[in-house]
């Protein structure tokens, strides 16, 4: 092998080392994206948990005929896919951090999943899961099937916002923006703290619905109640 000192020195003679800040920015960017995707994943997981916890498993047979059909129709697939996708993105970006390669895939994944669940739990507790209920009806077919399931007065399911409450009647605005008069004289009413309710019953007329069961639209999650006050 030839002595390459001279050639190497000639080659670098007009060069300068790249500035340190360029490498620092690159490192910060990689870390920022890894953290950002972890937060996205936690957010998607919060919505997934919110929908899963509030899913109407107890009415599965009434709604879909069988538990499995109900599972397929109401499982929040999209939020599950988002959770996994962002988790994987976060993992791959973390592996490209300066020392990310030192950690085994299993350990990084376990830690990421633990962080995602922890953050999702916190997000849910502060009522963040409820943003999925603000998605409009057209998009709800993909992002919140539960809303679509409960907009089926012909089959006896109705949900929406309570506008006015009287002794025997409720005024309800459903997810499509239609006003309903709900006869609650024969209904079993589970106390609800917010305006959102879901109703099992029978459609009597075009805008009159007789309720058998009135339930809160969603369950209150841990200290969400205090936070919402």
């Amino acid at each position: 092998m030839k002595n390459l000192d001279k050639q190497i020195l000639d080659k670098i003679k007009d060069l300068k080392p790249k500035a340190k800040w360029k490498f620092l920015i690159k490192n910060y960017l990689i870390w920022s994206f890894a953290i950002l995707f972890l937060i996205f994943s936690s957010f998607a997981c919060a919505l997934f948990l919110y929908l899963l916890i509030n899913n109407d498993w107890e009415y599965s047979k009434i709604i879909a005929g069988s538990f499995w059909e109900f599972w397929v129709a109401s499982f929040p697939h999209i939020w599950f896919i988002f959770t996994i996708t962002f988790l994987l993105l976060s993992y791959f970006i973390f592996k490209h951090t300066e020392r990310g390669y030192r950690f085994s895939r299993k350990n990084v994944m376990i830690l990421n999943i633990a962080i995602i669940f922890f953050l999702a739990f916190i997000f849910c507790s502060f009522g963040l899961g409820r943003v999925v209920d603000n998605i409009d009806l057209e998009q709800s077919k993909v992002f919140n099937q539960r809303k679509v399931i409960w907009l089926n007065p012909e089959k006896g399911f109705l949900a929406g916002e309570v506008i006015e409450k009287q002794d025997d009647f409720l005024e309800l605005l459903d997810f499509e923006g239609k006003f309903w008069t709900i006869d609650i004289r024969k209904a079993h009413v589970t106390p609800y703290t917010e305006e959102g309710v879901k109703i099992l019953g029978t459609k009597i007329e075009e805008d009159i619905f007789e309720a058998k069961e009135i339930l809160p639209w969603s369950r209150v999650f841990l200290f969400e109640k205090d936070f919402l006050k």
Partner: protein
Amino acid sequence: MLIKEFENKSDEEVTKLALEDQKYFIILVKRYQEKLYRYISRISNFNEQEKEDILQDVFVKVYVNLNSFNPNLKFSSWVYRITRNEVINNFRKFQRRPQIARIDPEDDFMTRIRCGLDLEREIDNKLDIDYLKEILNEINDKYKEVLILKFLEEKDYREISDILKIPMGTVATYISRGKKELRQKIEKYEKLR
């Protein structure tokens, strides 16, 4: 003169000096050019001119990226990593696959591999070196790469992990699997003799 004056300085200290004044970079070149040339020979089948070109490119990259060197790493691990990446880039450029693991007669490889593999029998050195070249090329590339770093470059697990950018546990697994594969092939060869 410069080399002697700074021979007690660590690579990391010389790196800092090289960032202030380019002339100190020659110390790193002197320290590493032969080691890296040998390493390139061991993991590739490029001809002499190509290897020298790769080596020059390696040092240019090392110099240009000096500020990205993380002092938590060993400098040698960092330059070996750059060298390996440069060799891979050249494989892609020339659309070649790594083939030859070069073993010099003066290498203490036989002793090391014998200890590493717990081989009891003394084997004829000349024949073994030729044979080992052959079987080293037969085993899985990822195991071969780790075995070369372990037994030829004498790197420890942490250094191999930093050079190949894989977790230490994976290094241990690859070494164990590589040794097992190598041992099986050697034993098969011994039976045929």
